[in-house]
C-alpha cells in the first residue's frame, strides 16, 4: 500500500491527464470521430467500470461473495427513472435518488445476510437480487414486466466520465486508508480481525452499502442512456456479467476491475451477433481463471503512481491472492 502524503505536483499532473482525456474524447464525439456505435460502447464501458469497481469492493476487498449486484443496479435505475419521468425532476435528483435508494436496499439486505458466510452468502444475495427483480415485475406503477419506456436521455460523456472517475477515486481512497485496511482484514481473516478490535460486521455492511450505492449510480446512468428499462435487464445473468469482470481482473485489484470491464465490454460488442459464443467464453473465463490463475489478471496489485517509478524486482514478491 502506498504511503499517504500530499504530493501537489503529482495531483496536478494526474488531474491534467484526466482533463486531457476528457476533452479529447468530448472533441471526438462532437466531431463524430467516435460515431454513434462507438458512443454506445463507450457508455457501456463506463457503466461497467462503475459496476465492476464497486462489486470488487464487496467481492474482492471485503471477500464477501455477492451475486446480487444487478439488483442494486435495478433499484438505482428505477429510482432515477421514476424521478425524471413520473416526477419530472432534473437528472441530478434522479442520480441522488438512485444512489440513496440503492444504498438503502444495500443496507436492508446487507444487515441480515452478511451474517452468513461464503457460499451461503452468495446464494442469499443471488436470492435477494432475484427478489428485487420479481418485486419490480409486480409493481404496476413502474410498468410491471414491461418496465419504463421513454426515459429522457440525459446521460452524456461528462456524466459518464465524471461518474467513473469519481467511483474509482472513492474506492481507491477508501482502500488506501485505515477504513480500507479494516475492510481488507475482514477478507484476510475475519476472526483475527474481530480480535484486533475491528467490528467486522460494520465494515462488511459498509462495503456492501457503498458497493450498492455505486451500482445504483450505474443503474441511473444506464436508464438515462438506453431510455428503456425492464426488470429482466437486471436478472442474475447481469450479476454474473459483473462477476466475470471482477474475477478476470483479479479479486482485490481496482486496476484489474477497470481493465477487465473494458475488455469484457469490447468482447461483448464484438460478439454481439454470437451471444452463445460470448457466454461460452464468459464461462470458460470463469473456469480457467479459477483453475490456473485464481488471483485474476492483476492479482491484488494495482497500477498506480508507484508502478511507473518502481524499480522492478526491488520489492519482495507479491504472493498469491486469496
Amino acid at each position, binding site marked *: *500500500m502506498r*504511503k*499517504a*502524503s*500530499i504530493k501537489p505536483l503529482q495531483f496536478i499532473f494526474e488531474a491534467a491527464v484526466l482533463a486531457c482525456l476528457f476533452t479529447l474524447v468530448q472533441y471526438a464525439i462532437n466531431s463524430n470521430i467516435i460515431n454513434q456505435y462507438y458512443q454506445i460502447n463507450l457508455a457501456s464501458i463506463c457503466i461497467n467500470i462503475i459496476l465492476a469497481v464497486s462489486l470488487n469492493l464487496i467481492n474482492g476487498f471485503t471477500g464477501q461473495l455477492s451475486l446480487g449486484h444487478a439488483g442494486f443496479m435495478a433499484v438505482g435505475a428505477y429510482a432515477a427513472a421514476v424521478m425524471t419521468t413520473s416526477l419530472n425532476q432534473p437528472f441530478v435528483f434522479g442520480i441522488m435518488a438512485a444512489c440513496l435508494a440503492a444504498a438503502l436496499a444495500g443496507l436492508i439486505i446487507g444487515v441480515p445476510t452478511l451474517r452468513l458466510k461464503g457460499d451461503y452468502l452468495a446464494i442469499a444475495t443471488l436470492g435477494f437480487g432475484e427478489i428485487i427483480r420479481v418485486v419490480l415485475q409486480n409493481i404496476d406503477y413502474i410498468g410491471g414486466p414491461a418496465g419504463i419506456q421513454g426515459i429522457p436521455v440525459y446521460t452524456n460523456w461528462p456524466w459518464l466520465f465524471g461518474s467513473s472517475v469519481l467511483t474509482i*477515486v*472513492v474506492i481507491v*481512497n*477508501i482502500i488506501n*486508508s*485505515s*477504513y*480500507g*485496511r*479494516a475492510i*481488507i*482484514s475482514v477478507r*484476510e*481473516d475475519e*476472526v*483475527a*480481525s*474481530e*480480535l*484486533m*478490535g*475491528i*467490528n*467486522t460486521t460494520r465494515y462488511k455492511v*459498509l462495503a456492501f452499502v457503498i458497493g450498492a450505492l455505486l451500482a445504483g449510480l450505474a443503474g441511473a446512468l444506464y436508464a438515462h442512456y438506453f431510455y428503456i428499462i425492464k426488470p429482466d435487464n437486471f436478472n442474475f445473468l447481469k450479476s454474473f456479467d459483473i462477476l466475470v469482470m471482477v474475477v478476470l481482473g483479479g479479486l482485490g485489484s481496482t486496476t484489474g476491475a477497470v481493465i477487465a470491464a473494458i475488455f469484457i465490454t469490447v468482447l461483448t460488442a464484438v460478439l454481439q451477433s454470437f451471444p452463445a459464443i460470448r457466454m461460452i467464453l464468459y464461462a470458460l473465463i470463469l473456469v480457467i481463471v479459477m483453475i490456473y490463475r485464481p488471483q485474476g489478471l492483476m492479482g*491484488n496489485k494495482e497500477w498506480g503512481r508507484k508502478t511507473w517509478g518502481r524499480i522492478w524486482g526491488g*520489492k*519482495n*514478491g*507479491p*504472493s*498469491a*491472492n*486469496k
Partner: protein
Amino acid sequence: MVHLQINRLSKAFGGLSAVLDFNFQLDKNELLGLIGPNGAGKTTVFNLITGVYKPDAGEIRFNGQNIAGLPAYRICQQGIARTFQNIRLFKDISVLDNVRIALHQNVPYSLLSAVARTPVFFKGEAKIEAQARKILKIFNLDDKRREIASNLPYGEQRRLEIARALATKPSLLILDEPAAGMNPNETRELMELIQWLRLQFDLSILLIEHDMSLVMGVCERIYVLDYGQVIAEGRPEEIRNNPRVIEAYLGEEVG
C-alpha cells in the same frame, strides 16, 4: 489489584464439557501461566475470555466489569489482546499493514475525510504509520515492514503476531503458545522479550505454553487445567511437585 477474575465459567460443545466451573484470578501486572495436557481446555478458556466463544455460564470480570458474552471486538477495545496457537496473521498483506489494522480502533480521521483526502487524513495516516513503526522497531521488524506477512520466517511471524496484538494497546496480553515451533535460542529471546514488554507497557500477561522451561522460567503463578477444570494453582516450584499435576501429565513430560 485484581485485573481479570473468572467465576464458574462453563462451556460445552455438543454435550461435552470443554470448560466446567472454571475459576481464576489474575492480578494487575502479573505474568501468569495456564498449562495442562492436550485437550484440557486451555485454548477454549482463551476463546471464552476474548469473545470468540460465548460462555454457557459464568462471569468474566475485567477491571471489575463483566465482559462475558460481549462481541470479540468490544473485548479487544476494552484492553484484551491475544495471539493464536496456529498463527493467524493477515497473510497476503504487508507487515506494516498488519500492525496498522490493529491500530484502526483509534483511527484519528473519518471515512469522509479519507475519501476527500483532507489534511486531517494525511496527518492521521502519518500518525498511524509512526505508531506502527515504533512497535515494529521493538520487535526488530521495521526493516521488513514492506514484506508480505506470509513471507516472513516462522519466528518472525510469531513476533509479528505479538506486535500486532500490542498495537491494539491492551492492558492484558494473552499469548497462546508463543514459543511453539521455536528453537531453544529463540525461546529464550522470547522469554526476555515477554518480561521486558510487561514492564515497558505496564501489562498483565496470561500465557498458555507447552514448553515447560518457558512457563516455569517466566511465570510467577501457574494454573493447571485438566478436563476443563483447575486441578492446581500456585508458584512454579509448587506446581512442579504437585502430585495431581504429575498424575495429569503422566505420560507427558514435565520439563
